[in-house]
């Protein structure tokens, strides 16, 4: 059980690392946004999974999952809003 949690945690940490690397290394904003949306949700998801596996009670597990779902919804919308805002500006600059 613990080994599974450790592995999941490490994988999650790796995704966060990848997200940060993408944020820093990718050349332009849209590709950075793409990297970000995937990395952080997956990273958080894996860590949440690890915590669920080792959680002491069902309530804790459910709460952690709820946090993940809310974060997922919020971050998806944020990324959408940001993308839209970038698009709008690019259009304006083209005009």
């Amino acid at each position, binding site marked *: 059980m*613990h080994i599974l*949690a*450790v592995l999941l*945690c*490490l994988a*999650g*940490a790796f995704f*966060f*690392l990848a*997200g*940060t690397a993408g*944020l*820093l290394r990718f050349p332009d*904003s849209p590709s*950075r*946004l793409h990297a*970000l949306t995937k*990395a*952080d*949700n997956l*990273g*958080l998801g894996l*860590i*949440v999974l690890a*915590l669920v596996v*080792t*959680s002491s009670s069902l309530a*804790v597990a459910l*709460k*952690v999952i*709820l*946090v993940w779902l*809310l*974060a997922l919804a*919020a*971050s998806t*919308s*944020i*990324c959408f*809003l*940001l993308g*839209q*805002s*970038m698009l*709008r500006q690019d259009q304006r600059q083209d005009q």
Partner: protein
Amino acid sequence: MQTFYLGVAAFLLLTMVVGLIRIFRGPRQEDRLMAMQLFGTTGVAVLLLLAAAFDASSMRNAALIFAVLAVLAVAAYARGPNRREKEIK
């Protein structure tokens, strides 16, 4: 297990510190907001890990609020074109 969680939390914190560079550099405002968004999610992960490490359930509530309210700032930023800008067009 506690030490391990703390270690992962510290590692995530490190990625956050490194990610600060994107906020410093920009160049677009959206890049900075993206980095902030990544911070938010990483922060939620750190909070959850610390909650597990210290066995404090109230920290999960903080994580929950964090997860949701990160929207607020971005929503305030991305409020569509200003009335002013529309008039210019």
